């Protein structure tokens, strides 16, 4: 069954090809069937592969399949090879599963769009790239997937290219990601230089059995460079700015790419390279700190945003911060677990918000919503489940995963991590319920002519919502403390090497059995506090937020303008680059280089101007010169020696 792994990649690319080449001539239904069918088949194969992997004994759960040799140059060898292990099999399930649901949702959501076939072509291509990313067995192939998902993200963010903001956002996403990829590419090169291979298995073997101590400088540099790539793709500080803008794309895209799958690639990559990361405590500290800070930072911005999708975008950044925090403290399983549950509930939330937007004919501003819960009940109910899940109330999925991260950050990390994470969790609960209340509760603030058209979404949109809601509800049980299925499943990837445990800290986790339950209570309390505050502010006293905003005017403005980070980047990087480039062109190129070339030409002309006076036009003068020259040459040849 594992041999079928190639098919997982094949179906989406066939879908891409069919929709891309012939989509224009096909009927809309056919396009939809092709797109969903290809992903559905892919999902089916993924399940088969997953089962195949489960049948193997835990230690033997690693399957590699070489397709062909891709780039070979001297000792540099990059194969097109696939790898199935617990980690990647989990990822393909998430990608194809959530992807499949979102494809079905999109059939309804995009129904009236002119670029229908183009949309599905891109979406299939994205699925292919994402699967390539998680299935590859070497860094370079992973890099292909890595950049290809970036490309799809570019194409899909800029899907409505007529809007300048959309194309701007697309460009920004690609370029910011490129900055991260710069680090990733350098990291791959350094890996090749250090280990003479870029194959995962070989590199990790060499790393764990080679003469690299914990804290080796090379490994630290490698991991930092790779992490730079991860910050770009997973929207962490300092490269997170593209993600909120990426909401310009169609909502299902935001759900699939910018919430559930692509943005988690960074987490996946770090988890994949856990061998390297655990060898470098310094990098781990960096990863954890950036994760924690991002979680808090993005959550604080999310508190005051009014665009429903932007709130979710900042929430995504914040949740990704959690995952990095988990990885940074060495709790890779917790990170991946959260990745999975997050994929469920964030996809649900985005699709739910898409359904809201759909109902309101494209309105995204929450200040113009309100009281929608009776008009679109299915959306409301599923959205509620998602909100509760992300806020972290038991027994929903988010509770378990987030709780595990909080626990691990305290146990393996330190109190500060925990504190930051806890505050961020509080914020999360607050802004998510703020969103819920503003959108579905209270009085309707919807425009009149929009209000007439409010309608529940068609079934092909609500069914995915319900399935995802179900998953958000049960997904957490995979990781119940004590009997964690996911922990055991992933153990071969994260456990089977000597360096995993950072000295000493692990033991604490095992010793204090009382911790998890205390932690659960605390985190539930935090969530409840956040929810009740939101309830007070947005349901009980709707005028309160306005007063608060006035009172803390500066802070409010700072948060509303996202700490002015975009503007700072603009001043620091974008503008200087533009100015430099224009100056280089006008000054250096036109004035200096061309100037000096033309100067030489003019010098020649000047000499010519002088010597042309020798050309009198009188033949006798020329004859005179000839004779003089002859004499000179004769003298030279005869007496020169």
């Amino acid at each position, binding site marked *: 069954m594992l041999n079928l792994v190639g098919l997982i990649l094949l179906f989406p690319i066939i879908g891409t090809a069919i929709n891309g080449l012939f989509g224009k001539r096909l009927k809309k239904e056919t396009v939809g069937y092709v797109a969903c069918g290809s992903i559905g088949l892919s999902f089916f194969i993924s399940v088969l592969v997953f089962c195949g992997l489960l049948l193997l004994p835990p230690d033997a759960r690693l399957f590699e399949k070489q397709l062909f040799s891709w780039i070979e*140059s001297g000792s540099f060898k990059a194969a097109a090879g696939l790898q199935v292990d617990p980690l990647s099999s989990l990822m393909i399930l998430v990608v194809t599963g959530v992807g499949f649901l979102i494809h079905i949702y999109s059939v309804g959501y995009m129904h009236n769009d002119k670029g229908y076939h183009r949309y599905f072509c891109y979406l299939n291509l994205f699925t292919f790239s994402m699967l390539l990313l998680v299935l590859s067995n070497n860094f370079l192939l992973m890099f292909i997937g890595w950049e290809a998902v970036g490309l799809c993200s570019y194409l899909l963010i800029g899907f409505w290219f007529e809007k300048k903001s959309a194309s701007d956002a697309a460009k920004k996403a690609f370029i910011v990601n490129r900055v991260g990829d710069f680090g990733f590419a350098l990291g791959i090169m350094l890996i090749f230089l250090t280990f003479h291979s870029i194959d995962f298995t070989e590199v990790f073997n060499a790393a764990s059995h080679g003469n690299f101590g914990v804290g080796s400088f090379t490994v630290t540099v490698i991991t930092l460079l790779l992490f730079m790539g991860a910050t770009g793709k997973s929207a962490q500080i300092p490269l997170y700015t593209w993600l909120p803008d990426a909401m310009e794309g169609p909502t299902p895209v935001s759900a699939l790419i910018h919430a559930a799958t692509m943005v988690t690639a960074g987490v996946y990559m770090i988890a994949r390279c856990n061998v390297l990361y655990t060898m470098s405590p310094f990098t781990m500290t960096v990863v954890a700190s950036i994760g924690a800070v991002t979680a808090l930072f993005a959550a604080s911005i999310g508190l005051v945003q009014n665009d429903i999708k932007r709130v979710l975008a900042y929430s995504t950044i914040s949740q990704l911060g959690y995952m990095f925090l988990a990885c940074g403290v060495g709790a890779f399983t917790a990170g991946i677990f959260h990745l999975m549950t997050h994929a469920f509930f964030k996809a649900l939330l985005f699709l739910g918000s898409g359904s809201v937007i759909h109902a309101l004919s494209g309105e995204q501003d929450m200040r113009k919503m309100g009281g929608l819960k009776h008009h679109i009940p299915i959306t409301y109910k599923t959205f509620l489940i998602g909100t509760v899940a992300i806020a972290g109330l038991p027994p929903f999925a988010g509770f378990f995963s987030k709780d595990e991260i909080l626990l691990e950050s305290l146990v393996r990390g330190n109190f500060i991590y925990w504190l930051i994470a806890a505050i961020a969790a509080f914020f999360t609960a607050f802004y998510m319920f703020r969103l819920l209340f503003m959108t579905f509760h209270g009085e309707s603030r919807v425009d009149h002519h929009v209000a007439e058209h409010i309608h529940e979404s068609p079934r092909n949109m609500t069914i995915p919502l319900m399935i995802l809601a179900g998953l958000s509800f049960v997904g957490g049980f995979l990781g119940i403390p004590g009997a964690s299925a996911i922990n055991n499943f992933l153990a071969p990837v994260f456990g089977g090497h000597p360096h995993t445990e950072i000295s000493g800290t692990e033991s604490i986790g095992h010793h204090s059995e009382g911790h998890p339950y205390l932690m659960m209570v605390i985190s539930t309390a935090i969530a409840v506090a956040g929810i009740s505050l939101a309830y007070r502010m947005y349901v009980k006293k709707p005028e309160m937020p306005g007063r608060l905003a006035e009172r803390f005017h500066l802070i409010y403005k700072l948060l509303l303008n996202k700490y002015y980070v975009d503007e700072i980047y603009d001043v620091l990087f974008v503008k200087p680059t533009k100015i430099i480039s224009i100056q280089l062109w006008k000054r250096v190129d036109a004035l200096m280089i061309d100037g000096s070339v033309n100067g030489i030409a003019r010098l020649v002309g000047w000499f010519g101007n002088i010597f042309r006076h020798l050309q009198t036009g009188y033949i006798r003068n020329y004859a005179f010169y000839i004779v003089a020259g002859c004499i000179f040459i004769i003298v030279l040849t005869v007496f020169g020696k």
Partner: protein
Amino acid sequence: MSVPILTLITFIPIIGVFFILSIDSKRQELIRVTALLVSIVVFFISLPLFFNFDSHVYDMQFVEKLRWIPSFGIYYYLGIDGISLFLILLTTFITPLSILASWHITKNVKEYMIAMLVLETGMVGVFVSLDLFLFYVFWELMLIPMYLLIGIWGGPRRIYAAVKFFIYTMAGSVFMLLAIIALYFLNYKSTGEYTFNLLEYYRLDISFAAQFWLFLAFFLAFAIKVPMVPFHTWLPDAHVEAPTAGSVILAGVLLKMGTYGFVRFCLPLFPEASHAFIPVISWMAIVGIIYGALVSMAQDDLKKLVAYSSVSHLGFVMLGIFAFNIQGIEGGITQMINHGLSTGALFLIVGMLYERRHTRMIADFGGLTKQIPVFATFFMIVTLSSIGLPGLNGFVGEFLILVGAFKSRILYASLATTGIILAAVYMLWMFQRVMFGEITHEENKTLKDINKREFVILAPIVLLVFWIGIYPNSFLRKMDASVNHLLKQVGDKANIVSNIQIHNKPEQLQGIGVPKIDIVPENKTEW
């Protein structure tokens, strides 16, 4: 080898010229078709080179050697190896496409097509000749039709551009001629035989001082041709003024002669001098990469933008070649082909836009995707290939180059990698301004999407773009033997130097105050 295949490739265009000469100049369609057919025939004749090429031998293959001017030791000596193979194929591939792309030319069609075919002879000749004298003849021969193409069929400032192009190139090649003659006499001094045979010169043992000056002379000729910053200013002018086909050939093939020259002549002839010049050239290449990228960001003319991006791309090629290891050089050669394909395609696309709108200013476009979606798709693919998106051709070359550069000097590679970021910035920005957004100009609302002829031009390029991106090995394998041999000629120093450099002075890393970089010892001596 009974069929003189290289001679056929080189001189069939000239035979085509005679055909065209005998056609009445009013029958333009017939002239175009004849020229196209001739170039296609040449392309098909060149295909056996690829299939019959023995990739296990580094020796010159398909060799033809005839006496030409025996009293001076000049031979008609042709042959190819894995380095020149792809450049020849690129030439024979690009020429029919660019003839097809000049279908709209109505002024002096006969002369135009003759110039194109003569140009093809010159270009192929440069890549196949192994006799330096012959090489120089072809090198100069190819200048003239290009000069005419720019000067007669070019834009408003064509004369300025043509003269600039010609004088720049001549200035370099004169020094090269001088160096060739010097080599001729050096060879006579050591062997007592007058010859221009390149392979004989490879065996010469030249003192370092002589190498230094000879290298410098060759360097100047090739650096202008490449062009490396600061010898590049002829390029934007020439590109902007040249007709589409001229730009395509200029970018696709002519620039490669510079880089090819480095690989074929500079490195094996003057190994020690080349080593001495590594830092200088690498820095020039890096400056070129970044400078070219920055300047192209500031352009408002599409052709100029692409022209400056060439400067940046060729900086990569130079960096790869002067990494002195197999990845770098193979990457460099791959990148030459890639650049020929993707930049050539970009010029074709800009030309197609120009045919429709008679402007190249970015500001005059905007929102075209809505009007011409298929065209936009091609443009997108080519843009992405130029950016170096993995899975397309550009990535393979750039990545190998960077791996090579990384192996020899980490700092160089790190700096050069920033060029990849900048490439994304200027290309995507350009693409956005041209293709995305609302249509702001009325004229753009009536644009026609790609027609059959244009499709036939672009489709093969895009196919190759994917082929190289997905299965580059079919190309890399053929270079292996030659590149390995070249490196052996140049001496094993490169690898040693790079390793020593990492062990002894990792200052850029150690500067942070951390222990030295550690490396798993390689068990085999590999490149």
